[in-house]
C-alpha cells in the first residue's frame, strides 16, 4: 500500500513539475506585445475599483485612470485592448466582474463600427485571450469567439508562439508590469487636413447583428447585477459612414435607459480641438485624453451622485 502511495506521489510530482515548466515556457515564449492592459488588471486589489471602462483602443487612449483618481477620487481601470470588438468586450466584462464590484461600468460604443466579427484579427484576439487567467470564462470565450480549427491555438498558445525561440529578448523573461492602469499614452499630434463633417445625431445605420447581440448581452449582464452603465464614444476623425455606425447605439441605449455619451457632439463643451488633441484618426493624444477624462469624470460624478439620491 505504502509503495502505491509513493508511486502515486512520485507521479503527481512529476506531472506537476512538467506542467509548471510548460506554463513558464508558455509565458516566456508568447508574444507579450501590448499585453500590459489585460494582464496587469489582475494586479488590482479585488473589489477596490469604482469604475470599469471596457472597450477598444479608443478607451485606452481617451481615459487615464490616474487622472480620474487624482481629480475625482474615482478608482478605475481601462479593461481594454486593441481592436477589442463587442463580443470580446462582453467576455472582458465578465472577466473583470469576477474580481471587481464597480459602482459603474462604462462601455465603449466604438465596437459598433467593427462589423459582424467575433474578434479582431488573430493577433488582437491573442493579445486579449492569452492574457486572461486560465478559467471557465476563458474557455467559454475561446469556444464562443474562435472558430473550431483555431481553438487549440488559444487553449495552448505555445502552438503558435513556440517558434519565437529564435527572437527571444531579455524582456521576455521579465514579468509584465504597468502603472497606467490600462491606459496607453500617445504624445504625438496627428496632422489633420480637412475636418470631417459632423452628421446629425439622428443620422444612423442599423447596428449589425453580432455587435448588437453582444452589446445587449453586456447591458443585460450589468442589469442583472444591478450595475449602472454608461455608453461612451471618444472623439475621432472618422468619416460620416463610421459616425452613422456610432449613432446606431442611440436606440439601444434608449431602450435600456442608459445614457450614451457620444463625445463627437460635446467637443465644444470639453474644449476639445480635433486639430491638436488627436494622435491619429481614432485615438486621443495626452492633451485630448486629459480633456476627455475630465469631462467624463465630471459626468460620472454627477451620475453617481444622482444614483445615490
Amino acid at each position, binding site marked *: 500500500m505504502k509503495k502505491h502511495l509513493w*508511486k502515486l506521489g512520485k507521479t503527481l510530482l*512529476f506531472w506537476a*513539475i512538467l506542467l509548471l*515548466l*510548460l506554463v513558464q515556457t508558455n509565458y516566456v515564449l508568447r508574444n507579450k506585445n501590448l499585453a500590459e492592459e489585460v494582464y496587469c488588471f489582475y494586479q488590482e486589489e479585488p473589489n477596490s475599483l469604482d469604475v470599469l471602462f471596457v472597450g477598444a483602443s479608443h478607451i485606452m487612449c481617451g481615459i487615464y485612470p490616474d487622472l480620474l483618481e487624482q481629480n475625482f477620487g474615482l478608482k478605475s481601470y481601462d479593461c481594454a485592448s486593441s481592436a477589442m470588438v463587442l463580443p470580446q468586450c462582453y467576455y472582458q466584462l465578465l472577466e473583470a466582474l469576477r474580481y471587481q464590484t464597480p459602482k459603474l461600468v462604462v462601455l465603449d460604443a466604438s465596437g459598433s463600427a467593427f462589423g459582424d466579427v467575433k474578434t479582431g484579427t488573430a493577433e488582437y484576439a491573442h493579445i486579449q485571450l492569452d492574457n486572461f487567467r486560465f478559467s471557465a470564462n476563458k474557455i467559454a470565450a475561446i469556444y464562443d469567439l474562435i472558430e473550431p480549427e483555431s481553438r487549440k491555438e488559444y487553449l495552448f498558445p505555445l502552438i503558435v508562439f*513556440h*517558434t519565437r*525561440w*529564435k527572437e527571444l529578448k531579455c524582456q521576455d523573461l521579465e514579468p509584465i508590469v504597468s502603472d497606467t492602469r490600462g491606459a496607453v499614452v500617445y504624445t504625438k499630434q496627428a496632422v489633420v487636413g480637412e475636418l470631417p463633417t459632423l452628421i446629425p445625431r439622428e443620422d444612423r445605420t442599423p447596428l449589425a447583428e453580432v455587435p448588437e447581440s453582444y452589446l445587449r448581452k453586456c447591458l443585460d449582464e450589468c442589469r442583472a447585477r444591478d450595475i449602472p452603465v454608461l455608453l461612451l464614444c471618444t472623439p475621432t476623425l472618422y468619416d460620416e459612414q463610421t459616425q452613422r455606425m456610432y449613432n446606431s447605439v442611440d436606440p439601444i441605449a434608449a431602450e435600456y435607459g442608459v445614457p450614451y455619451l457620444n463625445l463627437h457632439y460635446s467637443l465644444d463643451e470639453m474644449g476639445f480641438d480635433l486639430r491638436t488633441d488627436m494622435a491619429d484618426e481614432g485615438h486621443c493624444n495626452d492633451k485630448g485624453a486629459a480633456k476627455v477624462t475630465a469631462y467624463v469624470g465630471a459626468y460620472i460624478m454627477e451620475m453617481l451622485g444622482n444614483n445615490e439620491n
Partner: protein
Amino acid sequence: MIFTSLKFLTFAVLTLVGYFALPKKLRWIWLTALSVYFYLCVGLKYGVFLLVSLLSVWLCGLYVKKGRWVLVLTLLVNLGLLAVLKYAAFAVTNLNRLPFVAIPVPEFVAPLGMSFYTFLSVSYIMDVYRELSEPQKNPLKLLLYLSFFPHITQGPIDRYETLAPQLFEGHSFDYARCAVGLRRALWGFFEKLVIADRLGLLVDPIFAAPGNYNGMEVLIAIFAYAIQIYADFAGYMDIACGLCEVLGIRLTENFDAPYFSASVPEFWRRWHMSLGSFFRDYLFYPVLRSGWMRKLKKKVGDRKKANKLATVIALAVVWTATGIWHGSAWHYIAWGMYYGGLIIASELIQFKRHLPKPLQVLRTFLLVLFGYVIFRSDNLARAWEILVQLTRFGDSGANLGLDTPDLIVACVATAILLVHDILRIRGKRPGELVAALPLPLRWVLVYVCVLSVVIFGVYGPEYNAASFIYFAF
C-alpha cells in the same frame, strides 16, 4: 490521424485510460473498437476493402486444409486488390505508351495502410497453411490483428504467432513499463518533430528544383534526406512501440542503427527489418524452394552453380517486388533494382573485407545515399538532374530552407540521434540506460526532451503540415 497531432495524443490517452479501466477480458475489444474508429477516420468507404480482406483471410484460415487452392485464391484476392487499387493507374498509363492503346486511366485510391494490412494478411494465411499458427476462429480478433492502429499505417509487420497472443491477452498496468513506453514515445516525437520535419524544410525545395542550387547544397540535401527519412520512420516506430509498450504489447523492431552497416546486405538487415524478413519468409524462400526452381537447378547440373543461379533469380524477384511495393512509379522500381543489383553482386563476388571497418561503413553509406537520390526524386529524370547538379560549383545565391538557428538545432538534434545509434551499435539499449539513471537525472532528461519538442518542434501554423513519409504506402 497523424501520430504527431493533438488529436492523436488525445486518442492515445483515451486508449490507455480505457484499456486499464476495463476488465482484462474486454481489453482486446476496446483495442478493436479504437482501431476501427481510427481506420474509419480516413473515410467510411475504405472500410469496405479492409472488410473484404478480413473475410477472405478468416475463411481461408478455416478452410485452407481443404487444399492449396484455398490459399492461392485468397492470395489472389488480397494481392489482386492491392495490385489493382495501387498499381492499375500506373500500369494503364504505361500501356498507353504503346501504339494503338488508349485505355482510360482509372482513378483508384488505395485505402490507408493497404500495403501493410495486405502483407499482414499474407503472413497470416501462409503461416496457417504452413501449420505455424492455428487459424483464428473469431473474425473480430483477426480484425484487430489486421487493423491494429499502431501498426496499420506504417508497420512494423509482426507475425501472427508473436503478436496475436499479446493483443488478445489483457495486460496489467506496470508502472515501470509505462514509464519506459512513454519515454520511448517521447523520443519518437523528438525524432519526428525536431529532426525529420525540420530537415524536410531543407530537403524539399532542393529536390523540387535542384537547378537552383550548387553541388554542395545538393549534397547537403541528400545527406539531410538520409537523416530525415530515418528519423521520420524510426520516430514513427518509436511512438507506436512506446504506446504499445505501455499496453504491455511488444512490437517487432524495424531499425538497428542502419547507417553503421559495413555492407549493403547488412544495411538491409538493419533497415525496415520487418519488411525484409517478410519478403524473406514469404517470397524469397518460396521462390527458392518452388517446384520449377528445383527443375531449373537440375537442368544446370553443377550444384554450386545451380544454387547461385537460384539465389540470383530469387533475389531479383524479391528486390523488384520491394521496389514496386514502395510505390507505383518507375523510380521506385529502379531503386529496388539498384539494391537488388548490389546485393546480387555481393552474393556472386566475394568482396574481400580488406578495408578497415570505418571505411566499409562509409562506403555503404555512400551507396545508400545514391539510392536515396533515386528514391526521393519525383522521377528518374529529376534524379539524373540531381546527380548532374552535384558537379556544379560556384555560388548559387539561393537560400537553404533553414536559417542558421534552425540549422544549429538540426545539427545538435542529429548529433543526439548519432549518439543513440552509436550506443545501439555497441549493443546497448538507450531506453534501458535511461531507466537505470538516478531519478532526478531521469526526470531532467525527460523534461529537457519534452521542452525541446515543444519549443523546437516543427508544428503549428508557422509551418506547413508535414506528413510521415511512409504514410502514403
